[in-house]
């Protein structure tokens, strides 16, 4: 057959076109829809007002995460504890009520499987290769780690998917981001994605779907791939894809919502046809050499503001673009940093290990290895928030919770926590946090909070030294 070689993105797209319109936009079928409490109430309200139903409740899964406090959820007698913030409680109650009314499968706040939507989807096997997957949350790009075309949508689109199981979309351009070589000692998937965003810029991926390729990505675990794909949106790309392979199939096999028996075999056979064909063309290709990537972190208020930990705060004048100079000056003012300061000399008061970027079991293991036998520095508050109840249980079975708590870290219940200032976990104004989350925007972790994005191991290193530190000096 002499058909044109196709990319992974083009193959998934083609398999989901319900109708192509004259202007080139397509009605695209959505296979999987994750729902949480923040971006769904107005969507369900819209359905109710128009007298509409959820077309395919089975293809939908709801779980609360953003608002839930990460402190104990039940009292000693096992009774559910009330949530102090009235508005948070109302949103959580609205979700509970909506899923019951519209018969949407739901993981309750008290279930062992509860967690951050982007941790729960893959963990339950709800996220599958070759599917289209959406959620009213921009970090839905994470699910691309398993080869799903996954992207965040707004609430009107949530309503549209609930009612029709489709979305009207225009095909994106494709960008290949290839990372070749072998990662150096102490370099994690988080450093890889920070380096990529540092290179392409926060709007470098706008209009594109990224496909991550190359030796480094191929060798990465699914947990690591989820970290990389998760932050695609921080590079401006709505979705980031990684071709499914044996690592993906091994990860998914036997998960609760993954296909079983003959369906599994049929699915794997199809998934094997998905990787981009040899000679497939991307609209843009960016390459990175793994040997150039060091443990990295951000210095400013955009995820593109990346430096290696051995580096210093840049001088705004060093940027060519006057707008970037102005932005950098504003960032440094907000961050309370001066040009030329060594990153390793910057002290922190808070450390957050968690979020849909870095709250999976491998992340907690990496942080625990650094925390083991050490203690959180004076004046530092350090939180470890597992991404789901299952991650928490696994970590406890491995004794990671004891490593953390005896080192002076707080061990919390799963949820979005200090990633965004929506629940009680916040960074106070003017204080500094080494955070494994994905956004260092102004006010993201609380009004006036100063965020440095880092990997889990680097976060643990900051916690035990009380300053931003090169984790390699602490690793045995």
């Amino acid at each position: 057959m002499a058909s044109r070689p196709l990319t992974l993105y083009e193959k998934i797209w083609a398999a989901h076109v319900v109708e192509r319109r004259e202007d080139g936009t397509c009605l695209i079928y959505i296979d999987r829809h994750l729902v949480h409490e923040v971006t769904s109430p107005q969507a369900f309200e819209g359905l109710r007002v128009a007298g509409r139903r959820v077309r395919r409740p089975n293809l939908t899964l709801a779980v609360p995460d953003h608002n839930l406090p990460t402190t104990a959820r039940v009292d000693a007698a096992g009774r559910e504890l009330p949530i102090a913030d009235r508005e948070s409680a109302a949103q959580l109650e609205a979700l509970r009520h909506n899923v019951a009314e519209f018969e949407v499968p739901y993981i309750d706040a008290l279930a062992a499987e509860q967690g951050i939507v982007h941790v729960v989807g893959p963990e339950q096997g709800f996220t599958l290769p070759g599917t289209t997957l959406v959620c009213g949350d921009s970090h839905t790009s994470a699910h691309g780690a398993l080869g799903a075309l996954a992207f965040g949508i707004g609430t009107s689109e949530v309503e549209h998917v609930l009612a029709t199981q489709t979305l009207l979309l225009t095909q994106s351009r494709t960008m290949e981001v290839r990372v070749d070589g072998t990662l150096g000692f102490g370099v994690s998937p988080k450093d890889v994605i920070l380096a990529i965003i540092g290179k392409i810029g926060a709007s470098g991926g706008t209009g594109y779907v990224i496909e991550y390729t190359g030796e480094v990505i191929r060798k990465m675990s699914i947990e690591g791939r989820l970290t990389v794909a998760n932050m695609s949106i921080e590079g401006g790309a709505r979705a980031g894809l990684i071709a499914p392979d044996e690592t993906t199939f091994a990860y998914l096999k036997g998960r609760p919502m993954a296909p079983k028996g003959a369906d599994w075999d049929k699915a794997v056979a199809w998934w094997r046809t998905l990787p981009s064909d040899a000679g497939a063309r991307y609209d843009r290709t960016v390459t990175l050499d793994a040997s150039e990537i060091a443990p990295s972190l951000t210095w400013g208020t955009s995820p593109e503001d990346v430096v290696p930990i051995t580096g210093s705060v840049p001088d705004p004048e060093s940027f060519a673009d006057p707008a970037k100079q102005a932005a950098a000056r504003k960032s440094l003012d907000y961050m309370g940093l001066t040009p030329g300061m060594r990153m390793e000399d910057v002290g922190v008061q808070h450390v957050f290990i968690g979020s849909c970027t870095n709250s999976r079991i491998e992340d907690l293991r990496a942080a625990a290895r650094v925390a083991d036998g050490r203690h959180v520095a004076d004046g530092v508050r350090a939180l470890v928030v597992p991404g789901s109840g299952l991650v928490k249980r696994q970590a406890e079975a491995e004794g990671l919770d004891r490593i953390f708590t005896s080192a002076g870290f707080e061990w919390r219940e799963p949820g979005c926590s200090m990633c965004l200032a929506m629940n009680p976990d916040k960074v106070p104004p003017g204080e500094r946090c080494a955070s494994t989350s994905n956004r260092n925007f102004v006010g993201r972790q609380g009004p006036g909070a100063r965020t440095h994005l880092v990997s889990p191991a680097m976060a643990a290193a900051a916690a035990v030294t009380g300053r931003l530190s090169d984790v390699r000096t602490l690793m045995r």
Partner: protein
Amino acid sequence: MQPATTVSGRAYPWGAKNVDTDVIIPAHWLKTIARSGLGKGAFETVRAQEGNIFNDPRYAGAPILIAGDNFGCGSSREHAAWALADMGVKAVIAPSFSDIFSGNAFKNGIVAVVLPQDQVDRLLEVARDHPVTIDLETMTVTTPFQDRFVFELDAFRRQCLMEGLDEVGLTLARDTAISNYEAIADEHRPWISGGSRNASVVVEGAGRT
């Protein structure tokens, strides 16, 4: 959605780059379960600063906002579009928008107009003291002077904006096509339809992280 063919009037000559949705509407405003009333929280952190454009009486209630590159980046919260709509903004002009934001804006009747930086710069200058007009019919932005800038807009979005059409209703009218697709997809990829209900089957490996 109200039909609209032109947006005309004062414009906030802001020009800021990389305005993220956390700036448009901070996270603590996201706890609402309604769509209205968010105008109060719009640009809260910007409004807290001295001499900001949003508290400038010259631009009070302006229907147009002029911004820099990458407007609406960051979180996918549609609250950003609701907040803009609630404060009376009907169009945003910028050199580029985040994909998610421009989709959300459109669904709430807000026109996201993309123009090259030099034309945006010119509009920033004019808008300080003069009104700006966006015409969806001719797809132009004009000023009281000789400026006439042509922009592009997806034909479908343009039609929806101009006629005030409800997108869910339009898609539901394609029900037969969707059902036909589902029947074919079910045959080729039977594992899709199990979805979240698959979990009721107890399997080995459940409880893995």
